[in-house]
């Protein structure tokens, strides 16, 4: 690779050709502030519109200032990153941005975690000259079941637009209007509800301000916990425990399962359960379904649909309902772990503790915003009562814990309650890309071959590439497995299936980068992909440390089938644990 020598702040450095000034400066330990720029390294996600103009630097011989995030180094370049000209420019530009930004930081969901706020502090902005007569752009608020859009706070960094279009290929968002009136939103500035939005929440995950936030359900949870007539149970998704610690100053990748359980108990939840239990249940159902279709296929049944697609990611379910409705019988009919949990909690468990359905409140803690929408889907309600009453994100849980003056750093480690709190390592890895299919393989292999797995870790299914392929030997039968994370990657796989070019028997799809650990409800990563990698590591470590590593070996799952469901895919299981999908594509009608 060709090298380029340049000087930054009087320091000489040699970097690869094609490096940006910002990156070269970083290597020298010089921190040039950036706002719109975002790079999730190794995930192929980069936002580089060069729009905010905060990262400008002085380059000798150039008339104007150069945006360091998007200006490549050149041989002999002399760069000054913090001259008075630069400092004045950054501050003035920041004043411009803030002059068109609401000042309601007190009640903003992003307060304290806002990149714009941090930048204002960093650049020392203390007043906004001319604010008293500065016109501010105004848009209507959008309250969807999962995401709240307050475009008054949009600074046109375009990160959400890039995630929605390039990474997810959902296309719900686009920049609209021009100049001062421009912002990013759905077509016709309608609410997300009327768009192709999947509620994956990746727009929220990357938004540097409070323009895109989750719909907050903490008030509902507080109300439920305060109501003496209600029995409140909580379930926590696998990815939450690997990230929650970040909100309490712990290093990324610190698993806080025990402390989290302790905190939930102190918050007053009557039963602290684990979504992982339902993940094991999912494997039983989905794995059985996979084997059923596979066996039929191997026996020459031409009508059987293969590959089977996982269905535990609700954003992914929304995605194919919108974009590939003609393929809605291909994904597994198994409900997601959140919904399986809710269903079992409000039947099996409610019966067990003798509480009426309507007096049992199920709260889920999810790394995800699409789960909020999923919990509200009509098919997951019985007489209007939802199986899962409220779904709150990892971030919302952190707020609740903090509000209760609890600190994960000092809480003891405690165990989940039984019976819906026991889980296998296979369930834990649901939180990362490739995890669901690995969990399924662990179980399906042993059921299909009646042999014990010698090596439980399937390294070939792990990794961070957007699309991965592996062939697992089922005792002589090669099973082709595909894995995609990111809906753009999923789209490619679906197009292949549609075109009859897919060689896979089973495909796992997760909407978010890295799987659930990178979900839209997780602590904000602020563009640091090492955080996602650390979370992944924590998940695999948790799996490795579990005494039970395979779903079908979870004793409480076995018991659930014995006592209640019968066997996987039984009629009862079908009724409680499976679902169907809908065509949500836009229709043009003739009037």
């Amino acid at each position, binding site marked *: 690779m060709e090298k380029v020598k340049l000087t930054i702040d009087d320091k000489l450095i040699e970097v690869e050709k094609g490096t940006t000034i910002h990156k070269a400066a970083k290597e020298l330990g010089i921190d040039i502030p950036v706002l719109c720029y975002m790079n999730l390294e190794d995930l192929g996600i980069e936002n580089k519109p060069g729009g905010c103009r905060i990262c400008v630097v002085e380059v000798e011989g150039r008339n104007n200032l150069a945006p360091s995030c998007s200006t490549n180094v050149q041989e002999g370049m002399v760069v000054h990153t913090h001259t008075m000209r630069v400092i004045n420019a950054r501050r003035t530009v920041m004043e411009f941005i803030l002059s068109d930004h609401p000042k309601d930081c007190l009640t903003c969901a992003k307060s304290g975690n806002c990149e714009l706020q941090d930048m204002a502090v960093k650049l020392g902005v203390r007043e906004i000259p001319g604010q008293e007569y500065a016109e501010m752009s105004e848009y209507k608020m959008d309250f969807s079941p999962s995401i709240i859009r307050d475009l008054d706070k949009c600074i046109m960094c375009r990160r959400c637009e890039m995630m929605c*279009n390039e990474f997810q290929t*959902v*296309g*719900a*968002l*686009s*920049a*609209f*209007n*021009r100049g001062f009136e421009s912002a990013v*939103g*759905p*077509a*016709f500035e309608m609410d997300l*509800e*009327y*768009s*192709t*939005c999947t509620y994956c929440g990746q727009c929220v995950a990357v938004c540097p301000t409070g323009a895109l936030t989750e719909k907050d359900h903490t008030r509902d949870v507080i109300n439920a916990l305060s109501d003496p007539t209600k029995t409140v149970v909580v379930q926590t998704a696998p990815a939450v425990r690997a990230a929650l610690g970040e909100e309490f100053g712990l290093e990324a990748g610190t698993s806080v399962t025990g402390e989290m359980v302790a905190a939930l108990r102190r918050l007053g939840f009557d039963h602290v359960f684990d979504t992982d239990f339902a993940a094991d249940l999912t494997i039983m159902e989905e794995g059985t379904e996979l084997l059923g279709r596979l066996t039929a296929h191997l026996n020459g049944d031409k009508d059987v649909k293969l590959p089977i697609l996982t269905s535990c990611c609700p954003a992914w379910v*929304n995605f194919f309902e919108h974009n590939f409705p003609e393929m809605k019988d291909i994904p597994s009919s198994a409900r997601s772990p959140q919904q399986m949990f809710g269903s079992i909690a409000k039947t099996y468990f409610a019966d067990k503790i003798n509480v009426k359905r309507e007096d049992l409140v199920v709260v889920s803690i999810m790394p995800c915003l699409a789960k909020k*929408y999923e919990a509200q889907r009509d098919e997951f309600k019985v007489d209007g009562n939802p199986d899962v009453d409220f779904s709150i994100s990892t971030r919302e849980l952190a707020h609740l814990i903090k509000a209760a003056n609890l600190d994960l750093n000092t809480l003891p480690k405690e165990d989940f309650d039984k019976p819906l709190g026991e889980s296998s390592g296979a369930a834990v890895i649901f939180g990362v890309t490739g995890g669901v299919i690995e969990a399924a393989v662990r179980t399906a292999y042993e059921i299909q071959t009646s042999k014990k797995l010698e090596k439980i870790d399937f390294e070939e299914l792990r990794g961070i590439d957007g699309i991965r392929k592996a062939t697992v030997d089922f005792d002589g039968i090669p099973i082709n497995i595909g894995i995609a994370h990111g809906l753009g990657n999923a789209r490619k796989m679906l197009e292949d299936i549609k075109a009859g070019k897919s060689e896979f028997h089973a495909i796992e799809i997760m909407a978010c980068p890295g799987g659930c650990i990178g979900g839209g409800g997780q602590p904000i990563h602020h563009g640091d992909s090492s955080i996602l990698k650390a979370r992944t590591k924590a998940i695999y470590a948790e799996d490795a440390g579990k005494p039970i590593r395979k779903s079908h070996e979870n004793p409480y799952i076995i018991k659930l089938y014995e006592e209640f469901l019968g066997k996987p895919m039984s009629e009862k299981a079908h009724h409680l644990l499976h679902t169907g999908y809908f*065509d*949500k*594509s*836009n*229709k*043009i*009608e*003739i*009037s």
Partner: protein
Amino acid sequence: MSSIKVKLKEQDLNKIKEICKSFNNEEGELINVLHKTQEHFGYLPAEIQEVVAQELNMSVAKVYGVVTFYSFFTMLPKGKFPISICTGTACYVRGADNVLQEFKRQLGIEVGETSEDGKYSLSCLRCVGACGLAPVVLVGDKTYGRVSAEGVKEILAEYQDK
């Protein structure tokens, strides 16, 4: 999240499809498609944009993003007599603003609006290149040169009974 239903007359739907097809349904031809469509329908309401998006296999948000970026495209129908006031520099220095204000006053509408009876709509455009006639006003295809604020009444009178 319910699916969106767009209602259009069959012949309109077919017309849009025909226009898209004439550009090979290529996404890159979006602006040309929008030009042709607006030429035919006079404006680009949401329904039309939905169909165009579907035909060109692209997101309707993007179509909307493009429609709202370019001032030539409009989502509102124009009046029977669209009035455009040139606000190019040459017209400006010769008093186009006074003319514009007078039109606004007489019609009781703002720029970009259409009068309640659908008769007039008001818009500004940047230089029609008839700078020798500044200030210039267009009503439909007809050009009025050297218009003064006092002359506005006269121009409108021409269309009173049409």
